[in-house]
């Protein structure tokens, strides 16, 4: 007995525990749910067909104040808030929600036993516009009439019409008052009142019969003349080709037929005055759709709209989609370009090769047979800038490879074919490459009349053009080839110097005395002159070089020191020793290197002092000179090695005495 009781108690406890657990297993929200069995009204704030709505689009403060429920019905995801015992309080709540949270057309829905059922209540809305098969954009519609954000406009779809309505009024009088104000404020004379029953649109006469059936509302029945005075009956809209409201709006533009919405059940569409999602509000999206509709049209616009409807989340998606399309097209173009360029390059190379072979044959013929076999005639017949350029190149090529009589003949031919005129013409061209080529041709062929034209470019900002002008000057001014140095304003770089020197060495150029430029303000010109004086061993003007060791520029002094060494100017030894203490490190090193080239016993005392330098290189260079001086120097080195008795020093002595290094 006790056992049975115990068993029962245990059983009851288990059941109780289970029951206590139930609420915990549910989300906390369900705790606050009112009795599911009773009748209640809620306010639908949003709906979306096919997929759940991104919760972000539901205003945050609404979520804070109300619990938003998601329900699924015939493929629609519907979002409702609040609990009201009566339709009227629910309507008040819906108005409050509309005003407070700026929700577009919230409306009342009825639930019995948790099931959504149609509302057996008549209410009225105002239709602003309608469109046959093609949806309009709520935003553009509102923009057109200047309807502010506080007046929500909903889209409803009763195939084949899209209708745009606003408001929700429990009584006809309220709706009429609103309509009057609405017509006045926005000038939409075609707007009219539409009655709704059970959540969807009904014909006007049905609304009247409904009111008669429900006597409680009989006093609200409007008189017929009054009604016809202000509106067209809703069911006559179709006879007006689906146009109500402003005709111009509805018919404007090729609005897109959204075939997908055709399948949506009428009542569901009608029940969907819904919260417009953020993306619908996006001006960018609408801009694109407007663009597609008005500018593109046809199938493309249709597809575009479909893509946008399905994919649009933010501006970035559209931008990136366009970029991807652009990249794809670009890829194809670039690839084709690469292939075509390859083919084109091969073609050009082949063409140049053929032309060169042909012209070479003509030129050889001309060289050996003169004009007898018409080779000159053939050459003269060559027309077109491309061909003449190839010919010029070929003549220049042959000119630099032949000598003696043939050389003269080639030059003569260049003038006879008037290729010099081509070159002069090219120098006036805008492109620096053409100018440079022209200068090169004119200089090679020594067209002296072009010298003044070329001279303009010796200070050009373009390095290549400038160097070419320098080279041309050297070649064309036979009597004074380096006179252009006087006109150089900017730095005469090492590269320019190298090129000018190379030309002077390659061709028979008369070399002037370079001391003429030793007093120039442009240090780089002085340095070049010094280097050239060394190369051409112009020792006559050694005193000028010695003077340069006191030049204000460190670089010039360094070059002068190197020059003294390379020219083996014994007159400069004392000078070098004298300036040594005041020179910077690099120049000191150069002085010792210069002395290495002019070793003299007289330097020993100076060099011994240098072996005490702290710097490794200075010490080593000084020891090298001592070793080079001969037995006197070597003796001094040995003595120093003994005196210092330092391993590092001995290593250096070994280094300088090792002839293999």
């Amino acid at each position, binding site marked *: 007995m006790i056992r049975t009781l115990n068993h029962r108690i245990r059983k009851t406890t288990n059941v109780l525990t289970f029951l206590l657990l139930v609420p915990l297993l549910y989300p906390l929200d369900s705790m606050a749910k009112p009795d599911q069995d009773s009748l209640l009204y809620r306010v639908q704030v949003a709906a979306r067909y096919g997929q759940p709505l991104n919760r972000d689009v539901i205003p945050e403060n609404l979520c804070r104040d109300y619990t938003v429920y998601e329900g699924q019905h015939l493929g629609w995801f519907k979002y409702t808030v609040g609990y009201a015992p009566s339709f009227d309080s629910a309507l008040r709540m819906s108005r409050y929600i509309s005003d407070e949270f700026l929700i577009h057309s919230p409306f009342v829905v009825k639930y019995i036993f948790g099931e959504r059922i149609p509302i057996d209540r008549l209410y009225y809305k105002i239709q602003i516009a309608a469109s046959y098969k093609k949806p309009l954009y709520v935003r553009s519609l509102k923009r057109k009439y200047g309807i502010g954000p506080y007046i929500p406009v909903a889209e409803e779809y009763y195939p084949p019409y899209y209708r745009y309505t606003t408001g929700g009024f429990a009584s006809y009088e309220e709706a009429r008052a609103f309509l009057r104000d609405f017509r006045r404020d926005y000038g939409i004379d075609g707007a009219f009142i539409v009655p709704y029953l059970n959540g969807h649109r009904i014909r006007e006469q049905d609304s009247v019969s409904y009111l008669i059936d429900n006597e409680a509302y009989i006093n609200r029945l409007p008189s017929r003349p009054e009604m016809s005075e202000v509106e067209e009956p809703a069911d006559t809209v179709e006879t007006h080709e689906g146009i109500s409201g402003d005709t111009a709006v509805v018919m404007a533009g090729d609005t897109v037929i959204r075939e997908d919405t055709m399948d949506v059940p009428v009542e569901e569409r009608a029940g969907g005055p819904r919260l417009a999602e953020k993306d619908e509000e996006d001006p960018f999206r609408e801009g694109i759709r407007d663009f597609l509709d008005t500018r593109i049209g046809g199938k493309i616009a249709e597809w575009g709209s479909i893509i946008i409807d399905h994919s649009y989340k933010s501006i970035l998606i559209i931008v990136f*989609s366009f970029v*991807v399309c652009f990249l794809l097209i670009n890829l194809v173009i*670039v690839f084709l370009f690469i292939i075509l360029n390859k083919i084109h390059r091969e073609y050009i190379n082949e063409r140049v090769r053929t032309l060169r072979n042909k012209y070479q044959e003509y030129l050889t013929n001309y060289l050996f047979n003169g004009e007898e076999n018409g080779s000159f005639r053939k050459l003269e017949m060559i027309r077109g800038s491309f061909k003449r350029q190839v010919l010029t190149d070929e003549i220049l090529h042959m000119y630099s490879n032949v000598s003696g009589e043939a050389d003269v003949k080639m030059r003569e031919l260049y003038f006879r074919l008037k290729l010099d005129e081509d070159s002069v013409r090219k120098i006036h061209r805008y492109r620096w490459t053409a100018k440079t080529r022209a200068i090169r041709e004119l200089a090679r062929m020594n067209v002296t009349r072009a010298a003044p034209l070329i001279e303009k470019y010796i200070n050009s900002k373009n390095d290549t053009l400038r160097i070419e002008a320098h080279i041309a000057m050297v070649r064309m001014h036979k009597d004074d080839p380096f006179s252009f140095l006087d006109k150089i304003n900017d*730095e005469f770089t090492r590269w320019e110097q190298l090129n000018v020197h190379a030309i002077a060495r390659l061709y028979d150029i008369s070399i002037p005395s370079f001391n003429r430029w030793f007093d120039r303000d442009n240090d780089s010109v002085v340095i070049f002159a010094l280097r050239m004086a060394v190369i051409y061993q112009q020792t006559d003007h050694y005193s000028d070089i010695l003077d340069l060791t006191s030049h204000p520029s460190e670089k010039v002094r360094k070059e002068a020191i190197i020059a003294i060494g390379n020219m083996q100017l014994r007159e400069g030894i004392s000078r070098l020793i004298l300036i040594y203490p005041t020179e910077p490190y690099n120049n000191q090193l150069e002085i010792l290197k210069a002395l290495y080239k002019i070793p003299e016993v007289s330097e020993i005392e100076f060099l011994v002092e240098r072996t005490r330098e702290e710097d490794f*290189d200075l010490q080593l260079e000084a020891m090298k000179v001592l070793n080079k001086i001969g037995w006197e120097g070597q003796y001094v080195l040995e003595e120093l090695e003994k005196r210092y008795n330092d391993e590092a020093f001995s290593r250096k002595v070994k280094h300088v005495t090792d002839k293999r290094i």
Partner: protein
Amino acid sequence: MSTIETIRIIFEKFIITYAICIALFYIFLAIVSVFVLRAYLRRNRFVDYEVMLSSPFAPSISVIAPAYNEENTIVENVRALLSLFYHDFEVVIVNDGSNDHSLQWVKDAYDLEKVDFAVNYRIETREIRGIYKSRNRSFSNLIVVDKQNGGKADALNAGINVSGKDYFVSIDVDSIISSDALLKLAKPFMEAKERRIIATGGVIRIANSCVIEGGELVSIRLPGSFLAKFQVLEYTRAFLMGRMAWSKLNGLLLISGALGLFDKEVASKCGGYYPKTVGEDMELVVRMRRYMADNNKPYRVAYVPDPLCWTEVPSTFRVLGRQRSRWTRGTIDTLRIHRKLFFNPRYGRMGLFSYPYWFFFEWLAPVVEMVGLCYFILIALFGAANWIFFFIILGFVYFFSITFSTYAILYEELTFHKYEKKWDVFRLFLYSWIEPILFHPFILFWAIKGNFDYFIAGKKGWGNMRRDGFGEFNSKTLRKRKKGKG
């Protein structure tokens, strides 16, 4: 809105901004490159490099090649170096304590003997055991330095100490240097005006599958190896589109260790190569730039787009992975050492532009990518992914990368068009389509591994990598190549 939500939004905004920035940066660099390349090629048409060959105006250059266990190729490669076209140059081979017969074979081949060379340790290095010169006068410009093993940077420093010329070229002894490389690299130094050129870099190309005889390139072919082909795309993009632009903007921070010409004075004054890092090539350039900026001297780092150096790239995942992880560690190390540059207006464009670029887009790019990937997987698992957006962005990234590669192929075609066969270009194009799928994930993984090794495993220096150091993969592949040839 909860804190997590706020963080999520900020993170997503950051990622998209980052991606757009990096894409815009690449486009910007590519556009600058077009102009630089065009100008260079046009100018080059009128340049006669031969005039430099015997000119007393050309600067003197030491070619420093560190060698570690290169016995198979060293003799051949030294010969190639000695036959470079230049007037006043010497070749300094630094045997970095090889434990094979590298030194012996060079000694035998070039009739070397030890000389009493007193080395000026301007830059501190490991002990130099001996310096060798040839008894044969025709090799008088060859110096071989035998030293204790100390890594590539240390070997290069020893070479700088021994070098007796004004400029030095650092090369990998196993790369093939084009014979006119010195002429082309030296030219920018001679063109300098008020701005001193402190270094010039050259373009590195891929030598896999090319025909090489006697240390010289005979015929250029597209690599046969799958991995090497992807690297062709990578190198073309990096050199023709990236570095060219950076040199124009005077913001170049990296001159590849395989070939670069440096001003010896500046390099030794700022302390030479830093032996404790794996990214010694980049570190030196940054330090030289810093030195010049600190001393208020105007300077520039130049770049030559000609393909001057051909090198064998790794063709196995293992070696490539190690190389990439090392590159990443090198980058991080350099950025860490020179963190003072970060948005420092004192260092001009380097501080405001190049350094932040390297920081954000070279070092952080794989990190951000990895974080983004993990984040995406997470939200996809939770079902919160916006798939449409994902596919659109994925499409964008994919096509952007292909477009970029295609443009690199275009640049190559319009400039040096070294791959003559039409089919080669087509193959490269095809490879650019699969590169983001098949090759990029590995690159990403190795970069992350580099970060992991650096920060977590604490591998900062060459560490135990030194033993199979800088030339390891090359000597192996070269050996294969030789076998194939023989």
